[in-house]
């Protein structure tokens, strides 16, 4: 899988409340509507600024807080290619894989706000097209790669039935 787009840079400890604020949870059964508000509490203009295919790039512990799967799902539905961060909060990371949103652990200090980047998941590399730097990706655990390859947990379970690999 290969993606190309603009990097939108955020800091450390972006919470699930930044990603999908509680005040929009009446929209939770209309995910396309909820997705129009992603990251609003981290940058209120973000939903208007990015284009489909762009990346969210952050520091450490991205997605801390709630177990709400609406957070990674809204990012995916909004059209973000992938989230790149130095580290992720556990539940968010797992949820992202389960819904098929690529989440990538890498040294994001090498990416600046507005850089154009290319992510090659199969090669495990990020190419920063703006400054020509290549960044290695931390490989995923084998179980997660299998789930991502099937396009998420539902397909994985449907293929392997009783979760026996």
């Amino acid at each position, binding site marked *: 899988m290969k993606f190309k787009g603009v990097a939108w840079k955020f800091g450390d*400890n972006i*919470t699930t*409340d*930044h990603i999908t*604020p*509680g*005040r*929009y*949870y*009446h*929209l*939770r*059964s209309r995910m396309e509507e909820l997705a129009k508000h992603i990251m*609003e*509490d981290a940058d*209120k203009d973000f939903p208007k600024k990015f284009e489909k295919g762009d990346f969210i790039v952050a520091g*450490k*512990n991205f997605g*801390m*807080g*709630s*177990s*709400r*799967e*609406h957070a*990674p*799902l809204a990012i995916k539905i909004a059209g973000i290619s992938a989230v790149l961060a130095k*580290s992720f*909060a*556990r*539940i968010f990371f*797992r*949820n992202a894989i*389960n*819904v098929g949103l690529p989440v990538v652990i890498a040294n994001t200090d090498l990416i600046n706000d507005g850089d154009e980047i290319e992510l090659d998941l199969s090669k495990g590399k990020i190419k920063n097209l703006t400054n020509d730097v290549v960044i290695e990706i931390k490989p995923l*655990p*084998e*179980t997660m790669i299998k789930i991502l390859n099937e396009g*998420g*947990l*539902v397909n994985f*379970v*449907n293929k392997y039935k*009783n*979760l*026996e690999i």
Partner: protein
Amino acid sequence: MVESSGKGKTIAEKIFSKACGKDVKANEYVFANIDLAMIHDITAPLAIKAFKEIAGNGKVWDSSKIVMAFDHQCPADSIAAAENQKMLRKFAEEQGILNYDVKEGIAHQIMVERHVMPGMLIVGADSHTCMYGALAAFATGIGSTDMGAVLALGKLWFKVPETIKFVVNGKLGKHVYSKDVILKLIGIVGADGANYKACEFEGKVIENMSMDQRFTITNMAIEMGGKAGIIGTDDVTKDYLKSRVDDFEEIRSDEDATFAKIVELDVTNMEPQVAKPHRVDNVVGVSEVEGVKADQVFIGSCTNGRYEDLKIAAEILKGEKVAKNTRLIVIPASRTQYLKALKNGLIDIFVEAGAIVEFPSCGPCMGGSFGLIASNETSVSTSNRNFIGRQGSPEGKIYLVSPATAAATAIYGEITDPRKV
């Protein structure tokens, strides 16, 4: 890694070994059988969608092991919430799932009062599921798709976590409580200090804590990234469970178990603690924030809405009045806690002081239901998160405190050290 002979097991390793039927240690990937699963009004719809994508119109794996409760938008605060609850009610009825509906309070509190047993592997579609570990269960929050798979299969894949041991010794001073201890610990290790790890709590201070106080500790393990908060069984566990069972499996970590890290804290002379906006690990002593004006004070939530919490607050509020420019919202965590507070006169004290007492639910803590704050308003709250927008306006501010500090703050309308009241 801390040195050890490596033969012994942590509580987490013991529970996962039992749940997957073979001896496993930290960092192994396992498929484990689930003993109990909890779903609530916010996360259940997506979980049911995932379940149907796997099982079609089939049955859940074991309806007797699934618990449903509505607590986030409760009673329904909008037509959308009402429609959502109607759909969930229908699913529970078709599947024969125990549904507490809007009638019993916060799902986590119902779980510990009625369902959780030591040694169980429990998943909940909510991050504060880690609270149940005070009863020596391994309980962790999962997302809706994971929950969909659990509803269909009764099992899930896990990485057996390493465990950080928190040893809390010394003596708590007057009006210093378990909330102050856990805030202090979160401040020490940081918001991701226990990411992917189980957090086990022990030491004299934990041993001397009641179960109500212990739940506050394990509830907030997630605020340092913890996968679970755990306290081994002892006499307090026995006493708490005696109305439900005569006997249960004792479970504690072996002396020669391997821990990722040991964090020690002596709480002697520690003052009440406060987490400042907008991070739970932004923790200071109350003396640093005394005088900050409070527009709203919230006493409640799965963190601090139990009888003991309410009693501590009521003792401070007795005969006093809530400050003129401050609103005090009190919400017992469950109907059981509410009734106990009612029978013992606590609700009278709150209402006479000018508080608004609401029915058991998450209340303002969800940030999308009722009891919200406006822009530039400050909430002083006994709940577990002070993230931007968590209790309403993203331009509001939230300070996290113990029930004692919250009660003292309500009287003076500004953050107040409860030891001075």
